[in-house]
């Protein structure tokens, strides 16, 4: 590495440098069962690629048809759209990362 950025720990080992993917946390939001929700990503212009993780929370459905929200991303806005009827739709948490 002739240029760039390295951070070493107290043992002198490099643990963060310009070869890694940064763990950039862009935000998280919860979409309640049966409702749509959206989230505007702050500083989306700094990010080249967005990633989302979708979790069903507060629930361990093994005895019902449990539907998470579907996720779409457009112009820096993440939208969660509820699926199914009131007994099927589950509360969904969306975590947004980027690099």
């Amino acid at each position: 590495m002739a240029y760039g950025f390295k951070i070493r720990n107290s043992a002198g080992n490099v643990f963060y440098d310009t070869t890694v993917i940064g763990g950039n946390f862009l935000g998280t939001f919860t979409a309640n069962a049966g409702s749509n929700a959206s989230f505007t990503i702050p500083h989306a212009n700094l990010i080249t690629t967005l990633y989302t993780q979708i979790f069903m929370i507060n629930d361990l459905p093994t005895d019902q048809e449990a539907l998470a929200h579907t996720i779409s991303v457009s112009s820096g806005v993440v939208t969660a759209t509820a699926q199914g009827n009131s007994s099927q739709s589950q509360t969904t948490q969306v975590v947004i990362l980027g690099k």
Partner: protein
Amino acid sequence: MAFGVQVKSDSGDLIVSSDVKTYHYIGSPSYAGVQSSYNNYSGSRVYRYTITNAETPLVFIKPADANKFYAVLTHFKSGNNWTYDVIGSGTSDQPPTLYAFAALSGSTSSSETYGVMVKDASGNRTFDSRDKPLAIIDIVSAIPPNVPMDGGATSTSNVDPGWHECNIASYRAAMEHDFTSDDTHTDYSYSNSGHNSNYMFAAPSIAQSAYRKNGYHYHCDGCSNWSQADEHHYFTGNLGVFYRQAYKLTSSQVQAGWCSVKEFWYGNASKTSWAPWQSSCNSSSAFGIPFSQKSINRVSNSVIIADATNYV
């Protein structure tokens, strides 16, 4: 950006910013035991963990067994207390080690007086090398196969398990299917040049799947013999298995697959005749499968891969 700091990677992607918060290591969630077990087919365990933090954690799984599938099944929040349920395949207890990361809050507990710290316009830390920022190795978008079973999709057409008197277990044996799921997965390669046994991944389980088989038998003793009383023999049965999405991290691949979580079984055998007596023979409890012959919530999810060595 009129002021502040931006550091970009060799690929031109953001790795340090005074505008965007970076995930930092907040600790290893405490293992609280097995919540549920399922020991048939490929089997599964649901392991519970807890951690306290002001910001929403991102939880990584370092597998206890590289041959098992794992995923974050669900989580619960009460104040700053977080409870995570992690599913793992197999018929023995092999709880993985979890590593949790979150955006920085408050001040560091580190006594180190050197390193790199970046703050935003409000004076809140976005990056602090003393608090072990998350260095991601790769991110893979993964989706499991539509059908979880190694034996392929079942048909809802009735199979005839034969007549086994009132022995419900024998009917079930005759209706079996290869409901194991160990060998059914979609494979994705990742950047693995420095792979070691401390590699870990963050991935949720939201996809669910359920498949069933239906059984029916009928025969009559005596119906074609005028000298013998007619005796009708019936059996009706259903056998189904419910699955949740999970992932295996090998030295070169993310494998998106499934864990069998629960089974559903119903069997009813009966005999009747023209005579006044009637026997219901034997019956199990109701079937109860929530849905079948499909997978739901089956969408691509990000699987984030990192090296736990830096955070042990």
